């Protein structure tokens, strides 16, 4: 079964968002199907992170339809959205520095989930995550604040997975970390995908995005300018030049 015939998990349409009086997003529409990895691309300030935050309910002012698993989640508080099975990994890591690795994972823990058809969703335990991120397994009692940037990046993903999300929103995973860590992140995303996880990520690094994703949306000044398969985007140098300034 290919991803394109899988059911739609997240369906966003007519999404508008503001920071203060500044209008940032204009009628953004996108969808994610089960099992897909989707990249939301565009330059800095194009509205990628804003889109993810708006979906998550983290903005004080946004409008539009955000349909997740057939339910409208627009206007819900972030914790309610998270409890419905949307996991969010922020761009600036935001791990809890005073808490140990184990405690950090504990903050993300939610009960196991089922899909609508009754089948069990991926169910993560600390041990399973330590297997996926061997580095973390070796430092379970270390405080978050004493970890390197790359390790924190792994921890923030693991913490979100503890909520057994049905869809993960991953904000700029490659920003500000060494290339070798970016590569690990790519491997990690591919490993999750192989287990059937669905991911919507915002990304500026075109090389990274095309390594990991099936489809892409390109944002410019808060509007979707392009959508299509990653393969098509790879060959569309016009779009790349115009909006990704590659």
């Amino acid at each position: 079964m290919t991803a394109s015939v899988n059911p739609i998990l997240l369906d966003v349409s007519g999404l508008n968002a503001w920071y203060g009086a500044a209008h940032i997003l204009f009628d953004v529409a996108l969808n994610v199907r089960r099992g897909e990895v989707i990249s939301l691309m565009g330059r800095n300030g194009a509205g990628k992170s804003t889109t993810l935050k708006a979906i998550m309910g983290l903005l004080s002012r946004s409008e539009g339809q955000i349909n997740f698993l057939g339910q409208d989640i627009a206007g819900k508080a972030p914790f309610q959205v998270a409890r419905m099975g949307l996991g969010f990994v922020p761009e600036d890591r935001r791990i809890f520095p005073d808490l140990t690795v184990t405690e950090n994972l504990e903050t993300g823990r939610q009960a196991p989930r089922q899909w609508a058809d009754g089948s069990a969703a991926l169910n993560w335990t600390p041990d399973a995550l330590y297997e996926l991120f061997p580095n973390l397994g070796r430092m379970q009692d270390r405080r978050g604040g004493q970890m390197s940037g790359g390790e924190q990046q792994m921890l923030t993903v693991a913490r979100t997975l503890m909520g057994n999300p049905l869809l993960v929103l991953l904000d700029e995973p490659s920003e500000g970390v060494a290339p070798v860590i970016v590569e690990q992140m790519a491997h990690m995303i591919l490993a999750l995908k192989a287990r059937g996880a669905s991911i919507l990520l915002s990304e500026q690094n075109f090389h990274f995005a095309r390594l990991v994703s099936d489809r892409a949306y390109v944002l410019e000044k808060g509007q979707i300018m392009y959508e299509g398969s990653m393969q098509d985007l790879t060959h569309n140098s016009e779009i790349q030049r115009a909006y990704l300034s590659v």
Partner: protein
Amino acid sequence: MSGALLEVRDLYMAFGGVCAVDGITFDLHPGELLALIGPNGAGKSTTFNMVNGQLRASGGSVRLAEQELVGMKPRAIWRLGVGRTFQIAATFASFTVVENVQMAVMSHQQQIFSLWRPAANRYRDEALMLLKQVGMDAQADRACSELAYGDIKRVELAMALANNPRLLLMDEPTAGMAPRERNELMALTKRLVVERGMAVLFTEHSMDVVFAHADRIIVLARGKLIAEGEADEIRSHPKVKEVYFGNGLTFEHPPEPAVAARIPA
């Protein structure tokens, strides 16, 4: 080496017994863009902060045109002609663009403690000239808080130029920018370096930027300098590959089949 503007010798820093920077040595010449790269936590920021005086080195020396900088306050080092930009661009959010640069010029002209005549018209022309050099003169009277991030970076650069620096320290200058903006900013920097005979020391995670714009590269890992040289030498350096680059999949164009193979159907 003779003719170096900045000479760093056996620089050493320990925090509570943990060694953050372990005896690094390098030179920087006028007109040169030197990239300082390495994994997170390798000691890049610490090195930076020792050069500009924010941290006092536990050992070693930093000399700017023969003058020892270790032990001097950041302000004093600034007055000697060392400018700096920050990883997260820091401008004065409640100022207009031109006021930000005017502030830097007023400080350079030692007018901070002037209490009466309004600041608005002081050195406005000088500030506009500096803004013109970074291509921001058209937005001079906008509030800084409304600017796009790439533009804030340019304003920051104009501020750093206000005291005619001989050395510019740039901490991840292109972080958070799109590829084209990155190249534009670094090309601008290179032009200013040549025009003004400055030198630039910068840290950077974008290898595209480093390979395209740095004249020379030094690599730190765990506080030690593990490699030094031009782009090609560093690119193929096995140790640097191991600790920092990885396979280069995420910053260089891999051959097409490799991509296809990596993405499961």
